[in-house]
């Protein structure tokens, strides 16, 4: 007897790919800062989802499960990259010059400050503010407790605040809005 995930057609994955491929790529891209790596990570995450018999088939549960796999794959990728001592690419060139110019004018100092956060703090920030995840969902995706997720987010915000003077905060916000 085969599980639902092992069935040949695997038709259940189709709407998941349709619904989540792009948000998943953007999450991976936000965490890994490398377009090629983000594509590989998203592909690997969906492959694991399809092959794992415990993968939930309910859309919202699947999303959290997929994002958790992506976060774990990003961590693996960062560890490998640290070993290889490859430089981190924070600024990713956009294909649209207008968007790239806006991004650079908008908040490069903040972008650099986020880059100086620890890996787990960046994950927490990305999930909480980039994905608008609740603290509970942030914790589930990160594989930690909700209280830990809250601490990581608040610690990250403290670090960002310390990195930016109050004047910069005001100027940066005016420019970006």
């Amino acid at each position, binding site marked *: 007897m085969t599980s639902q995930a*092992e069935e*040949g*057609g*695997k*038709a259940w*994955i*189709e*709407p998941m*790919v*349709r619904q989540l*491929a*792009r948000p998943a*790529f*953007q999450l991976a*891209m*936000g965490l890994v800062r490398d*377009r090629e790596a*983000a*594509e590989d990570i*998203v*592909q690997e995450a*969906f*492959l694991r989802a*399809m*092959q794992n018999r415990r993968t939930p088939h309910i859309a919202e549960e699947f999303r959290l499960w997929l994002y958790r796999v992506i976060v774990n794959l990003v961590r693996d990728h960062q560890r490998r990259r640290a070993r290889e001592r490859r430089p981190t690419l924070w600024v*990713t060139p*956009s*294909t*649209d010059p207008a*968007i*790239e110019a*806006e*991004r650079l004018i*908008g*908040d490069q100092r*903040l*972008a650099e400050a*986020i880059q100086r956060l620890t890996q787990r703090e960046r994950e927490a*920030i*990305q999930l909480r*503010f*980039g994905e608008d995840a609740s603290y509970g969902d942030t914790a589930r995706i990160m594989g930690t407790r909700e209280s830990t997720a809250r601490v990581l987010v608040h610690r990250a*915000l403290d670090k*960002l*605040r310390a990195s*930016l003077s109050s004047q910069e*905060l005001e100027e*940066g*916000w005016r420019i*970006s*809005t």
Partner: protein
Amino acid sequence: MNALEDRVRAQLLAERQAAAPPPDLEAQLLYALHRSEVPARRAGIFRQVVLAAAVVGFASLVAFGFSRLQSRPAPAGHAIPTASASESASATPTVSASGSVSPSATAIAAARPATADELTAMVGAGKPGAERDLGIRDCGSSQPAPGNDCFAVPSPQRGTIGTEAGYFLGARFGSGCWVYLYHDSGGWHYVNVRCGQATGYAPTVGADDQVYVTGCANTRTTPGLGSPVVDCLPNGTVVHLTNGPAYSDGKLWWRLQGHGWMAHDFLISPA
């Protein structure tokens, strides 16, 4: 605190906009998922082969036992069975130990990846027909994207060659597409196209598919309408494709694991 949170949100949103996913991301993913099913299926075939070998080994031992019994003088009053091992074997159906029907067509080649030249010729012959049937234009230098549903052939190009027939991968926005063709002395000729988000909507070698028919669809020992019928599979039967396509009697044919060959028309989802 809120000002900083809002500023972080705005920054992350801008970065998301800058990190636009590839236009054919879904098609790439579905192709990768489709390809990933092949090793799993091979593992299943390996288990079947091991099981078949075990059965054959057991049968050999039984036959050896019978032959030893026959070679011994029969004790008085004790009758030895008259059915020999070879007779038992001859009564075995023609279905092989692995469960597949023995192919009798020697001209059928195993499916293989298309070469670059073959792909160029197939794409040239198949693209216009696919775009016409799908009712979308060629992407040209653009790529499929929201608001730009057009037909493209992802790079690197991928295709498979069977026997005087083949297929290649295309894409429209949100879907992968398989374009089927046959080949004769005049070159490649378009047959049809199917687009979808997962396997099971159109036949490809190494993947599962399902039968689309009213009543049941015949399978035959070799590709061709004159070939003996092996089975008749009802609508919705899930089958595993092991070879094809082969062009015969004006049709494409696919070999189904354990069933023989079925015409292409019964293995594609309704347009």
